[in-house]
């Protein structure tokens, strides 16, 4: 089997990797905002509940979380697992896990907005909701770009954990090909794909950071 056919097989898995990556970002970011707001809530039970959730999501292996989500319907509700469920389980697991990390980053970003901004908005008569969306949120976004970039880059590589529930993304494919051929090459090719993908991610995030540099 030639190099090109190795690449071809891996590209097949790369589509799945991209799919997990983009869907996770799409769901985990808004969910992260909700997590951050719940984590800062003055309503104590919600606040504590969120703290516990984040603690567990950050404190246990993502791989284990994926397995838990995947088998939950069977063990808790006795529902027979269909093959299609794999995709949803992966997306749910990744999204919730990343939302925990994003939530903490967003919370730090929100709390870093000076109290004077809230006071200026309050005196001008903005409601709490207006203050959040018009004043706090845009300033938070700027502040969180560097740590979010870190998380996004980690996510690119973490997508490989989907193999834990036998969801065939790129790394799973590469391992299969490597095993079939008793050749380590496919793994390096996959590594190269991750690396190139991350260079693109870093470049895009750099552009975002630059775009937001018009204010301090």
């Amino acid at each position, binding site marked *: 089997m030639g190099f090109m056919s190795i690449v071809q097989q891996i590209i097949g898995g790369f589509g799945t990797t991209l799919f997990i990556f983009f869907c996770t970002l799409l769901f985990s970011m808004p969910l992260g905002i909700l997590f951050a707001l719940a984590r800062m809530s003055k309503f104590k039970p919600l606040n504590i509940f969120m703290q516990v959730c984040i603690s567990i999501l950050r404190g246990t292996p993502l791989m284990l979380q994926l397995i838990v989500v995947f088998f939950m319907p069977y063990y808790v509700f006795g529902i027979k697992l269909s093959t299609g469920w794999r995709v949803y389980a992966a997306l749910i697991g990744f999204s919730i896990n990343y939302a925990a990390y994003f939530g903490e980053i967003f919370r730090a970003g929100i709390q870093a907005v*000076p109290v004077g901004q809230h006071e*200026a908005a309050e005196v001008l008569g903005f409601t709490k909701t207006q203050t959040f969306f018009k004043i706090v949120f845009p300033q938070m976004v700027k502040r969180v770009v560097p740590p979010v970039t870190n998380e996004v880059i980690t996510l690119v590589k973490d997508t490989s954990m989907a193999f834990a529930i036998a969801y065939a993304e790129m790394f799973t494919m590469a391992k299969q090909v490597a095993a079939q051929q008793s050749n380590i090459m496919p793994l390096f090719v996959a590594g190269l794909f991750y690396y190139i993908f991350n260079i693109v991610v870093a470049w895009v995030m750099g552009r975002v950071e630059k775009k937001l540099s018009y204010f301090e």
Partner: protein
Amino acid sequence: MSLFEINNVKKAFGDLTVLHDISVKVDEGEVVAIIGPSGSGKSTLLRCATMLETMDSGELVYLDEKAAHNDSSGHTVYASPADLRRIKGYFGLVFQNFNLFPHFSVMRNLTEAPIHVQKRDRSEVEAEARELIRKMGLEGKENYYPQQLSGGQQQRVAIARALAMNPKMLFFDEPTSALDPELTGEILKVIRQLAQEKMTMVIVTHEMEFARDVADRVIFMDGGYIVEEGRPSDVISNPSEERTKQFLARFSGQGAINE
């Protein structure tokens, strides 16, 4: 009729009483300067007046509308959020460190609240904002962001932002304390101009000369009490209380006090 009244305000932070039963009335067109050492409670008084701080006890009245009153046990009760939002439209506040919105252009700093809080017509608000920007000597800076401006320019934007709401009165919390002497002058000039236009203003300041020239009335505070109050020529140039003399003596070296 007084435009603004704060009556018998008491405020403590934990065990520390910052305001002991203080009352201030301000008439329309009046300029009141509040002076005093750090920790005298003058900024807290201003923050209570602008509702950034809640009073423990006391009454707050704008244009005969009660923003806060005492219940039977002497604790402050504030009006409904809707009433407070309306009452907040009666005054503006200029902060020591400007607190401009860094992600908005100068123009948007001025127009955002009139459009989204007062629900006024955008084109009308923008025309007024342009006029204010011109008045503050910031013509051509409409599309600049705050960080591109000097401290003095930023503070002028902050004053314009407060004025864009068409308030009945303005509060200033040490508006020149974050500025070097040269930039201080341009802000004082703007406030002087507003005084000439009969804008009602309450100014917490360390600029004694300025307070004496511009204010109709000076309030000297210390330790959470109003120690002395009256015409600037009395309070600043010829104080009767020992504590006031002591405080002002520190400024006399700068040639700011003696006429």
